[in-house]
Structure formats: C-alpha cells, structure tokens
C-alpha cells in the first residue's frame, strides 16, 4: 500500500507508515465501525452502470457543504466525484437546502420505486407516478423537510414561447375501475424554454408516509398546456427514469433526532 502522514489540517502526506490489518482485525474494526454508524450489517446496494445517478450526486453536494463547515477536506473525493458523473450538469443544491442541512442530523435520498406512464381513456390524461419508501428510517428521527425533485430540459423551438401547467398530486386512494383519488400538493407554471431542477415541497406528505406507511400510495405528476390539453413528460422536456442518470427524479428528506439513542454494549 501507499505511505501517508497527516499534518494538522488532516491532509495526507508521504512518509506515513501503516500496515495491513489481519483478517480478524479487519472484521473487528468493521464490526465496531458499523456499531458506531448504527447499522446492523454491512449494506449491499445495487449500483447501476457503476455510476452515480442524480440522488447520490445531490447528496455528495450536501456532503461537500457539510465537510466544508467541519473544516475537514474530503479526501480523494474530487476525482471520484468527477469520474462518477456521466456529463456535467447544473448545481444541485440551493440556499434553501443548505438551510435545511444546518438544521438536520441526517439527510436521506430515496430511490423511485415505480414509474408508470399512463394514458386513460376517455380523457386521455397523461401522468407519471412515483413512489418512495421513507418508512425504513432509523428510530427516533423525525422529518423536518422533504422535497421531490424533477429535472426539466429546454424543449424544441415549436413550443418555445409556450407555458405549461405542472401539477403534483398525493395519491390518496386507488380504484381498480377508475382514476385514483388525488390531493393537489402544488401546481406550477413552467416556460417551455426553462431548464433546471424543479423542487416541490412534500414535507407534510413525507411525514404521513413515515407515520403511516399504509397511506403511502405515491405521487402523481401531470402536465397540461395553457389550453388545458394533457401532454406527456417528453413533450415538455421533463425527465423520468429513461433520462440521463444524473437528471433522474428523486426524493430527499432532512431529519432531526427526536430522542437520544443509546448504543448497546457489545
């Protein structure tokens, strides 16, 4: 292995001697650190294409913000960060998210579990469904803020001066023979030429999903033209699961500890 040494700024320098851990020593270290992190076992995630999609990249931005405040440089991350991006994309974090971060003990991004494109007759209403599972969070953590994020690209010149109305609904109840009962969370007017991340506050909805997972039926998003005609995501430049990895929709939630956690003795 390499040789490192540390100065007062925790930078790594040549000349720092180390030895490899023996197998049982490695296992003991792993066990203790997992215990500190509060994890019952070592996670085994599934990473598609060996590259990070939008959620980890967003979280990495938040991490760099937090690490900057701790005055502790992120070791070796700059190169990994760049290599994990497929293409350059606009900055992910906003001032509001930085404010949420200052108040939070933990931040979590969630994978979209389902994405459906539907066209129901006779209304022929396009919409996409999204579902996230925030119920498996550590005990004692409460949601302080949550966002649903969608990326919009600039659309072709044919729609250039048009606006669209995007609506985000919470699904309240599903029916086998008709459209689901919906609760409108937010509607937003978008310019066709607009490009960037769209953030939607879903704090109250997330709290409900955490407290009562049985009520987690996901979100529904639909888009209409200014004349009220339903259009697909693709027509207005909204990206779904089929889009580039670093621009896929995701949910992020900020948590604060609501009770003291006592680490069990080994």
């Amino acid at each position, binding site marked *: 292995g390499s040789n490192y040494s540390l100065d007062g700024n*925790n930078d790594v320098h040549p000349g*720092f001697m180390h030895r490899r851990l023996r197998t049982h020593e490695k296992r003991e270290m792993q066990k203790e*650190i997992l215990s500190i*992190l509060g994890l019952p076992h070592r996670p085994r995630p599934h990473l598609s294409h060996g590259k990070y999609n939008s959620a980890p990249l967003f*979280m990495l931005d938040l991490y760099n913000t937090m690490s900057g405040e*701790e005055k502790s440089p992120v*070791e070796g991350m700059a190169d990994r960060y760049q290599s994990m991006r497929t293409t350059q994309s606009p900055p992910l974090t906003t001032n509001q998210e930085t404010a949420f971060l200052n108040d939070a003990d*933990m931040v979590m991004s969630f994978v979209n579990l389902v994405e459906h494109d539907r066209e129901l007759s006779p209304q022929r209403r396009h919409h996409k469904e999204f579902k996230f599972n925030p119920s498996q969070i550590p005990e004692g953590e409460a949601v302080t803020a949550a966002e649903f994020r969608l990326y919009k690209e600039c659309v072709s010149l044919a729609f250039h001066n048009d606006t669209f109305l995007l609506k985000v609904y919470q699904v309240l109840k599903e029916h086998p023979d008709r459209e689901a009962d919906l609760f409108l969370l937010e509607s937003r007017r978008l310019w066709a030429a607009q490009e960037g991340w769209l953030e939607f506050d879903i704090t109250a909805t997330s709290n409900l999903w955490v407290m009562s997972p049985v009520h987690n039926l996901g979100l529904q998003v639909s888009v209409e033209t200014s004349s009220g005609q339903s259009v697909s995501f693709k027509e207005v430049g909204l990206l779904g699961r089929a889009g580039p990895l670093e621009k896929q929709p995701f949910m992020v939630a900020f948590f604060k500890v609501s009770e003291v956690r006592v680490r069990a003795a080994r």
Partner: protein
Amino acid sequence: STGGKRRQQNRNRSTQPQEGSRGPGPADYNSSDQKTACRRHELYVSFSELGWQDWIIAPEGYAANYCDGECSFPLNAHMNATNHAIVQTLVHLMNPENVPKPCCAPTKLHAISVLYFDDNSNVILKKYKNMVVRACGCH
C-alpha cells in the same frame, strides 16, 4: 495505521535502567521533552482498506488520531492539563504507589460526516460526533 516513531520510543523506554525503590524524584521527569509528553498522534482509519468502497461514498477514510504520552511533573502549558491534573502529578510524586499519574486523553473531539448507501440503494448523509481527536491533554 499509526506513525512509526511510537515503536522506537517504546524500545528506548524498555532499555532504561530500573529506578530505586524510593521512586523517581522531580529531576527524573523531563516532561518538557515534547517527544514523550502527552500529545496527539496520527491514526488514519481507511474505509477503502476495509473493503467498503461499494457502499461508503465519502469519505474514503478519516484521521481519527489518538492521545498518548507522559503526564508527569512539571505539566507544561502545551499539555492542556486541568488544574486537578496539576495537583495529581504532585501527589503522585509524593505517593506513587497509591495515586497514579494523570491520563493523557482527548480534550477536543470533532464529528465527521459519512455519506453511504443502504441496502435499498437509498443514500444517507449523517454526522457522527466525537470521531476525531483534535487535541489531547492531561486529566
């Protein structure tokens, strides 16, 4: 992993001639020697060496550090000794069998943030307190 100087110091100490039963006097202590005095030492914990690159996104490791060294009379200003530790070193001089020297321990600990995947490929960013020794002192 730790700095290599520690092993050398231990070897030097073990070859020191044994002291008489009366116990060492003030002149035998030279805690102004900064190499043996209580201070912070380097210790780096590498997540990548533990084979965790697939689920820990950042950092690749962190400088945990540790405290070690003598807390002997006279306790100098750079040793961050509490008032109690100063008194304890004097009592130890007078009564070494019953009262130990103060301990060299962390006086300032910092948190680190860890970014990692869970089993469902959700990403978690969390701050963990008291992970890094920033300063050591005699207590």
